[in-house]
């Protein structure tokens, strides 16, 4: 599987340098009747996210008296991948929905919303690697656009190791053929990690190096998030 060269003359298959992010696009309020929504593209990878809520939670026995709850659904469109994905949740999307919830949860003052739910939905329209982190960036913007009180934004990116080189923002081919890939999210102002998943085989040193470069990329992504939010509120 891992035969094709992913690094040639210090450049990646799409011409990027190891530490280079793909072209990133962010757009707010793309779903009319959501409380907040956003579309984020990392290269071809496209996530659209919306937030419905805070809203009442039924049936009642799901309500929690002391706090609100956050629910997250990550979903891939059937046509977003090369081999059509049958609709509906699978084990992968169940796990990803959970880790995304935990990645975003710490920023939200859920205790301000007893018995209430905040529902975040992220749809992957096209998948070219790094879908879960793209979804997190979109959901973070959607939450902010919905006016949900948050301690911090969440910025997210992938890092990994391909052909022996540590890189950021893996595309689909790199993801499938990497020696290791890591999904990462942080609260940029608080400077803490809210998502950390890794697959592969790395020395401790490599893990720590990747974390450092993930942090730096997330700070760049955070700047973009801030810009798009400022432009949006200016535009209003």
């Amino acid at each position, binding site marked *: 599987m891992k035969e094709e060269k992913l690094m040639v003359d210090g450049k990646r298959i799409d011409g990027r340098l190891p530490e280079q992010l793909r072209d990133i696009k962010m757009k707010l309020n*793309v779903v009319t009747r959501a409380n907040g929504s956003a579309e984020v593209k990392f290269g071809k990878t496209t996530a659209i*996210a919306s937030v419905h809520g805070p809203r009442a939670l039924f049936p009642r026995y799901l309500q929690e008296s002391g706090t609100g709850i956050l629910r997250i659904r990550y979903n891939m469109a*059937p*046509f977003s991948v090369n081999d059509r994905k049958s609709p509906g949740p699978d084990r992968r999307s169940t796990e990803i929905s959970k880790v995304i919830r935990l990645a975003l949860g710490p920023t939200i003052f859920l205790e301000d919303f007893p018995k209430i739910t905040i529902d975040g*939905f992220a749809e992957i*329209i096209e998948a070219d690697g790094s879908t879960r982190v793209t979804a997190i960036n979109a959901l973070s913007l959607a939450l902010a656009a919905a006016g949900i009180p948050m301690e911090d934004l969440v910025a997210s990116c992938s890092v990994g190791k391909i052909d022996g080189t540590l890189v950021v923002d893996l595309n689909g081919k790199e993801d499938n053929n990497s020696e290791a890939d890591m999904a990462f999210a942080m609260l940029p102002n608080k400077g803490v990690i809210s998502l950390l998943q890794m697959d592969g085989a790395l020395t401790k040193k490599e893990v720590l190096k990747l974390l450092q470069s993930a942090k730096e990329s997330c700070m760049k992504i955070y700047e973009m998030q801030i810009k798009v939010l400022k432009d949006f509120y200016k535009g209003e």
Partner: protein
Amino acid sequence: MEELYALELIHKGKRIDGRKFDEFRAIEISTNIISTAEGSAKVKFGETEVIAGVKIGTGKPFPDTPDRGILIVNTEFTPMASPEFEAGPPSENAVELSRIVDRGIRESDAIELDKLCLVEGENVFSTFVDIHIINHHGNLQDAASLASIAALRNARLPKLENDKIVRGEYDKPLPVAFTPINITVSKVGDNFILDPNYDEEKILDSKLSISVRDDDKICALQKQGVNEIKFEDIERMLDTAIEKSKELRKLV
């Protein structure tokens, strides 16, 4: 109570967004927008936004049509697109929408399914049209139908090697013979309107979904809405759909 205001306006001959009764919102169609799909299209009617993606694979034909390709239409009312959509298996409304899109395409013989046979009884192309609702602001049926036929017209057959698909390489366009257009004609009181937005949809008495082929033949009908339709209204509804279909077909 936006919808009550919409109703009041209609009784006065006006619409909430200033359109004429038989006027669609601004229509945008973009095709080939998803590189993982064999064909794709995004359709916007104002804020309403629908994406259709075509995935083509190979598989065994149905036993009763051993020499024809397979066409399957599926719709997801993603909970992202509207607060009233719920996660889970397709709702009754999503199933109905898919089936109306499917019938419009199938009954008009739009796709030349006989050209999609590889080995009779053994291997044929299977064509999945997946409709993904992005933003629900009314008239999903017509938008989904338009996105579907636009995506099919945009679709290319994948290249085969030993009857297996080589992903990312293409052979020739999917053979599409017709461009059926679905026009839903709605009635509010004594007025016929087209392309209702989300608020207007709440005040409709009844609607008739009408699929029209390039030769003006009617290929599918479906009465919708909770109230009955009068016999004398049908002809006018059909005339409206036939006329309007020409306008939309030009956009594909």
